[in-house]
């Protein structure tokens, strides 16, 4: 018995929505960061599912690029977060209010 492809797509959409909602609602920068990763991996799951459904390898190749970019983003993002941590304790986005958005 095989799971229909649409289920994977729905799962990916749900994961993406959770990530997007978390990004908009949570205030802790590390959690926001994890939400971005969740969104990127939901996109990866979509790529792989469509790649299976279409019988085309290109979608799976795209996943590698997305993974590499996500890794690079982690490096820079954590670097910035650490640089901010050193100036003050806590990583809550609400603490950053010098610039009046």
């Amino acid at each position: 018995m095989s799971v229909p492809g649409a289920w994977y797509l729905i799962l990916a959409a749900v994961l993406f929505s959770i990530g997007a909602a978390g990004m908009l609602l949570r205030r802790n920068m590390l959690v926001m960061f994890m939400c971005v990763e969740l969104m990127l991996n939901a996109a990866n799951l979509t790529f792989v599912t469509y790649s299976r459904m279409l019988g085309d390898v290109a979608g799976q190749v795209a996943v590698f690029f997305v993974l590499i970019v996500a890794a690079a983003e982690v490096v820079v993002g954590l670097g910035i977060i650490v640089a901010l941590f050193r100036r003050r304790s806590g990583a809550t986005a609400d603490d950053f209010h010098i610039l009046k958005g």
Partner: protein
Amino acid sequence: MTPAPVTMPAAARAATATTAMIASVPSGPLVLPHVDYGALMPELILIGAAMLILTASAMTVRRAPQIVWTAVTVVASAAAGVASFVLWQRVTTHGPYAGLSGSLAVDGFSAVFLLLVSAATLLFALVANGWLEREGDKGPEMQALAMLSGSGAMLMASANDLIVLFLGLEIMSIALYVMAAMNHRREESGEAAMKYFLLGAFSSALLVYGIALTYGATGSTNLGRIAAFLSTEVVVSNGVLLAGMMLILVGLGFKVAAVPFHGWAPDVYDGSPSPVSGYMAAVAKAGGFAALVRVLLSSFSVLRLDWQPVVYGLALASLALGAILAVMQSDVKRMLAYSSISHVGFILVGVESGTRQAASGAEYYLFTYAFMVIGSFAVVSVLAGLGDRHHAISDFRGLAGRRPFLALSFTVLLLAQAGIPFTTGFLAKFYVLAAAVSGGFYVLATLAMLSAVVAAFFYLRLVLVMYGTGVQVAPLSREPAEEARRRSILQPILAGPGISVAGAASPVAVVPAGTGGGELPQGSAPEEGPLGGVFEQPPAASEAALPAMAAVAIGACVLVTVVFGIWAGPLVELAQRSTLLF
């Protein structure tokens, strides 16, 4: 690989997917695609030079003077500009083509953007040199990151595949996140980087999901194949395709800071080092718009009726909000940020019509805007003083008496942004509005002109502030109060009443030496200071020396803006001959 027939029921296809994939793996020796190094040369030069200066600085024991890194950057960006021009000549004589297995579009459109990014990187290197020397921030990082970021923008402009587009966007953005955080003396800089990073990562996640959905609906990420597929086949899953297209639009809308995705722009432009703000406004917008125009006009051209209302809304919101909020700013960098949002609205007005004229209009606008905005932020950067802190409108009061060259240059650049005739800014607005009118968007074009009138107000106000009150240097009451408020939040110990009084007198008056520490609002302990606890008193705006290189860059920006505004032929021809690949 040929695009898979998506019209076949997906479920039936899934059953045979595994065997199909195994069958599609070539059994012979791996055939590598032909790599067209000529088409990639501008990017390769910039990346190579960035790697070179980073390696060189790691290998040398003694710290080389800043001028060495700047010189390498200037030479590399000039070389990239020459390579772009060679590419332009090749394209205009032999016609556009898609290189690297169809993933790279080599056409006039991309060649002009390559030229733009090369020029912007060169100007940035000149402006940043003075900034880095003033801040005592030795090292090649800023210049190397600028070149890497530029190479990403170039890749975005010439991407003919959504995955290549995404990679270019990330190469550009990740370098820009770090560049935004490069000002150690202002806490706002780190905050700006954080905001830019979180929203940038969020927008690229939206973009990737959009690409994935588009891939699912059309069976390819190649822009040419998507266009071919959409014009020949009836799409089964139209909702998926539309969702994908909208997510791509939103992702790129974040990058170019179109309203309602503009929230980050004022904070990031304010907090970043001033040269970086200018570079961001020029290059990130150029890359974002190049990708947006190419995606909308080439592959989603068939779906015009679906994206036009969205672009219409974005354009209108950007024009209105950008102009109105810019009027309300008391800080020059924030004002320029909101003005850049209203410029985004103008470019979107041009894009809206979706014709060939739209592409060249947007291109001309971005090309000329790059010079105006880099020049403007260069003036701000010179005047902001140590720590890059003095950029309230009140700091520009009576500038004409103290710094005639800077005041005149800034005036020209501001008037050009307002769209005064005999500058490139006028022609830029003219061409995007002409594109909108020829597409039948009369209402939008009229509203755009109205917003230009509102925008003229805040540009002229700044000009009047610079020329109006002569050499009288009394600061406006609002900004020092703001500074004092910030300091009282951030460092309750240091922000005693004495310092607040001294701060209120500060921007141009001479401040007693004992209050020097109070000028650093980051509330850091002295040993955390970049100069090992030695805090110099920031020179007041009138005393800051004008670095020769920055003067050259500002002069070049003014010259381009005025000369090509009067002698319009060459640039206009450049934009009009730069056709899209398909």
